[in-house]
């Protein structure tokens, strides 16, 4: 099977007056239906990676293919969620979740006609993430964790082939975060959308992903890839098993080793 995402020798430079090399010689391949995490120190270009994959930014060099086609503009088969839930306060939760359907083709043109069906889909998603009966509430009436659940629903409503998550649980307290790991895992196991989770939380990456890619500090590139052979569903207890902790420790050591081997970039990073 050909991979859903294939990046070869990608390089990204931005800023004209003082060019910054954000990403260099990045190779990444992700197969359909996989859950992949990308970890790395902050400022390593993880968010740039998101923009490249979704077509919001063009690479300065190299090639990016999604579903066998070169990415040359915003992709419509992706869903995105961020640390900030970015729900619109003047819309109810349900109406926020349906927003992508008002934008993306072909739903956009049949939105009025199919409204009832779309509402049903949105409500089904809401109940999957444990938010039954919250659809008519406004986002600011929900807690942070609930808002993030709703944000997940919004990123999935148009049934994207590729889900991009940029530290989606970064702003939540530890309990809520681990609760949402399970919510996300359950969603993924049900629907099997290809997922790229960008995070700096190694435990989160290992808990959720099939494969963890480690990115170097700027300029970012993939310096290691770890498979996570833990069976699913993984449950909170899994995170305290020796196997789990060994994998996390292994990745952490490797990141540290990588830093020691290349002190100059690390120093530059600190200055920036």
């Amino acid at each position: 099977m050909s991979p859903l995402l294939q990046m070869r020798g990608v390089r990204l430079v931005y800023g004209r007056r003082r060019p910054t090399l954000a990403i260099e010689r990045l190779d990444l391949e992700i197969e359909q239906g996989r859950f992949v995490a990308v970890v790395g120190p902050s400022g390593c270009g993880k968010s740039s990676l998101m923009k490249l994959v979704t077509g919001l930014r063009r690479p300065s060099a190299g090639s990016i293919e999604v579903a066998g086609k070169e990415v040359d503009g915003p992709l419509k088969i992706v869903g995105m969620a961020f640390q900030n839930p970015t729900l619109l306060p003047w819309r109810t939760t349900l109406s926020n979740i349906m927003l992508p359907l008002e934008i993306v083709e072909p739903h956009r043109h049949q939105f009025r006609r199919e409204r009832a069906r779309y509402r049903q889909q949105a409500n089904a998603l809401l109940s999957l993430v444990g938010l039954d009966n919250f659809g008519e509430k406004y986002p600011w009436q929900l807690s942070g964790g609930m808002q993030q659940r709703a944000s997940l629903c919004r990123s999935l409503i148009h049934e994207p082939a590729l889900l991009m998550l940029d530290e989606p649980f970064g702003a939540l307290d530890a309990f809520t975060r681990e609760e949402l790991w399970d919510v996300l895992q359950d969603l993924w196991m049900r629907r099997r959308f290809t997922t790229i989770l960008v995070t700096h939380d190694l435990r989160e990456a290992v808990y959720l992903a099939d494969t963890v890619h480690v990115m170097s500090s700027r300029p970012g590139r993939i310096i290691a890839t770890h498979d996570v052979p833990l069976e699913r569903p993984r449950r909170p207890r899994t995170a305290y098993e020796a196997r789990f902790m060994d994998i996390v420790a292994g990745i952490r050591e490797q990141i540290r080793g990588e830093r020691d081997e290349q002190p100059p970039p690390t120093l530059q990073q600190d200055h920036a």
Partner: protein
Amino acid sequence: MMQSELVERAVPWAASLGLLLIWEIGCTLFNVPEFVLPKPTVVLAALVQWAGPIWFHASHTLITTVLGFALSVGAGVLIGIAVGSSRLAYRGFYPMLVGFNSIPKVAIVPVLVIWFGIGVVPAVLTAFLMSFFPIAVNVATGLATVEPEMEDVLRSLGAKPRDIIVKVGLPRALPYFFASLKVAITLAFVGSVISESIASNRGIGTMMVQAASDFRIALVFAGLLVTAVMGIAMYAGFAMLELRTTHWATRRMDFDADD
């Protein structure tokens, strides 16, 4: 609960009445001549005595102001959308807007009179020139502060810039817009009254200038009072409209979810 609500409702009236009372007592106590500062009761008497002419002029001012204000809402929203949604328009127009807003509008009235003659047009235009700037700036601010993540979400779905303005930018700018309306309507009154007092034969500004030259100071104050009341009434109207349309921004917990 009930009682504190009652107090809250009564406070604006009580404060205004208190000020009038101090004014009245002060004038009596220090024997202030009527042509310097007439007592509120005297102003009230003038208001009743000249009710006909005052209404004649005040209604004219009200119409002039509302016309100028309507123009500035239209122009302000358009300029705000242009400046707030396009970096290029922002860089191009913003310095001009700021510069223009710094010009004292009194200085423009004679020019407007040369162009359009004495009467309604200069007053409407002055009201417009005074009041479009806050509207434009506020709409632009609302549009320009759309979260980049939100923009990414929509752009990655294939949203055109217009979609982003309509779905996110404009609703987001609405509270800013209403806040600016409240400022703009009072400025529009300032504009039309300035223009009327310089070059017009009708309007509350004209009336006050004439009354002053006749030493009818009580009538001047009556005119000021009427202008203030009109300003407050319009302000209150927009404050109510604001509460109804942007409940999500004020976030009172007791509204009905109706959308």
